[in-house]
């Protein structure tokens, strides 16, 4: 008897937690998205699906922009994170742990503060652009802040560890003898990397993409701090609908739309590039 109950008891704390802080808010939000009214006279449930169509039409630009920025940041992240993870895994030696701590060190400072400090680096007459402009290397009106580039750079900076760590874990597990074996079988370094290391690292890349693309697409801090009005992302729209306009139905409907789009995207991605298949394809 006790043995049969044990799994349920083990699941209970986590399950209750999820019920209280995930399921209940989700149901509340779903309900909110179908309500009508205003903050003064109150919102009443009317099953008004039209809100979804309205917010999609009004804010599809920001929705698409968020996915584009998220995707761009993810691609840059893979390119930037792979060499870092590779170097720590294969050449880190005894100091591997120290390098990983260095990578995580910025996390000791608040996410928002770190993003704001980028403003000081990238500002028009700041430490980076100021001297370049004085030297005549850049035109006077040149700026980085307020452009999509600044927002994507901010996303890359803030999510870098989430890409490095899973790739590192995948690379770290590779038995060096497997690579040696490839070399023994007359594979050059490039071929050994492409045929052995890369396929074995792909599960890490796959996990990294999931861990960065989803939060990067729904992020609103980087765009608010480093971007301008023409880089507004969907997270900013949701925030302003909740906190400035007190338009709860629109905010909830937007949140669900975003969630649905991301879920569909992630499922399609997992379906098309499921870890197993990825390795098969790459090993061919």
């Amino acid at each position, binding site marked *: 008897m006790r043995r049969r109950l044990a799994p349920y008891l083990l699941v209970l704390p986590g399950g209750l937690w999820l019920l209280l802080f995930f399921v209940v808010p989700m149901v509340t939000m779903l*309900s909110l998205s179908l309500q009508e*009214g205003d903050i*003064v006279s*109150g919102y009443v449930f009317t099953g008004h699906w039209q809100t979804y169509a309205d917010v999609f039409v009004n804010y599809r630009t920001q929705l698409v922009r968020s996915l584009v920025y998220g995707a761009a940041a993810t691609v840059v992240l893979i390119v930037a994170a792979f060499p870092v993870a590779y170097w720590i895994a294969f050449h880190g030696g005894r100091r591997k742990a120290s390098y990983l701590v260095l990578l995580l060190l910025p996390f000791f400072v608040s996410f928002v503060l770190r993003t704001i400090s980028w403003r000081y680096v990238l500002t028009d007459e700041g430490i980076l652009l100021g001297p370049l402009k004085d030297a005549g290397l850049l035109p006077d009106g040149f700026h980085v*802040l307020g452009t999509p580039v600044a927002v994507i750079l901010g996303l890359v900076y803030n999510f870098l560890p989430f890409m490095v760590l899973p790739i590192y874990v995948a690379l770290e597990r590779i038995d060096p003898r497997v690579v040696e074996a490839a070399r023994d079988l007359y594979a050059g370094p490039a071929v050994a990397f492409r045929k052995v290391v890369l396929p074995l690292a792909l599960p890490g890349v796959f996990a990294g993409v999931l861990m960065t693309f989803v939060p990067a697409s729904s992020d609103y801090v980087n765009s608010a701090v480093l971007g301008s009005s023409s880089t507004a992302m969907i997270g900013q729209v949701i925030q302003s609908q*909740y906190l400035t306009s*007190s338009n709860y139905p629109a905010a909830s409907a937007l949140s669900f739309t975003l969630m649905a789009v991301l879920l569909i995207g992630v499922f399609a991605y997992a379906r098309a590039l499921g870890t197993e298949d990825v390795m098969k394809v790459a090993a061919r």
Partner: protein
Amino acid sequence: MSHLDPALVRGLTTRRGFLTTAGLAATGALLAACGVKGQGSPAASAPAADEVAKFWAGRTGTGSLSVASWPLYMDPEQPELKKFTAATGIKVNYQEVIQEMGPWFAKVQPQLAAKQDIGYDAMIITNGSNFAKFRNSGFLAPLDHAKLPNYVANADPSYAKAAYDPGNVYSIPWASGITGIAYDESKTGPITSIADLWNPRFKGKVGMFSDTEELGNYGLLAIGVKPEDSTPDDWRKAAEKLKEQKSSGVLRNYYDQSYIDALGKGEVWLTQAWSGDVFQKNVSDGTNYKFVIPAEGGTIWTDNFTIPVTAKNPVDALTLMDFFYQVPVSASLAEYINYVCPVPAAKEQIAKDAAAATGEDKATLAQVAASPLVFPAAGDYARLHYYVPFASEAEHQEFQSVFEPVVLG
């Protein structure tokens, strides 16, 4: 609101269709149970005298209170509050917790709707759409003017005529500010008009406010419409004008309080700005930015002392509010914050303080006493407009839906 909002009626039919066709009656009931309570709308006009009597009946002071205010709205040393505690024995917990009106309303609305204490006995809130939301939700206590003798004696009587709270029934002013244009004269030359904010000569160097009411007002003034007379059609035209400013690349960005920083760093050369900030920036950083009320007109806003209905210590709050209407206290506050002072007699007091002061302080105080930004002349007021007034929350939502897409393009 005397009429029934058509949006509410329209939803009723949809609801039935949704329930029957989807056969999700149980889910529907569950979802419907999560409604958000509102508070209905009391008449916008003054409440009957007995409502004041009803609220204040049996209430006495408790010897302490908490105030919710904004950053940079009092000398960090809080000299006025120290004087207040010395004079009355009432302890004040002064917190700079309000940064923006929308988020502040969103934060306290659930507690106030549930008739719970929000932890503050007085809050300083700006006139505008959120003020109307506070008032129309019945969240503000009607003030007992019999307990505000200094206010009655010293306040500028024009405030009692303001449309956002006629008769100062729910609020009395803390300070007002002017939204004008701040600019770096060394880069732009003299700036006199709103049209300069569209001038291609300043491509990529113009800042505007992200707040839709601030932005909307300037859009309306730019197309020659007075905000108080504007119609939804004018809003759409103003929004088009603002979009032009953005698409032509003249606009650098829409800013919140960070505009002053952007000006300081040379990110913008000219920007919509709040009067007191520019003065404080020049004094604290030794800069020489100019501030102008544009020829087309500017915006004036008033931050007001209010008491939430659920306040635990409303009598102490009322005592503190009245204390700030003593001429010397009002003068000392204006000397520090440099926003429009609601007590005209403070001007003379500041001039007196200037005469008594020495060195650098003397010049600064004399400048404050003479400043049209602290004590605007009648002619200045004629050019200043409050935010667009909304008859209902539905009208405000329409305004939002016109200007929000401009900001979040």
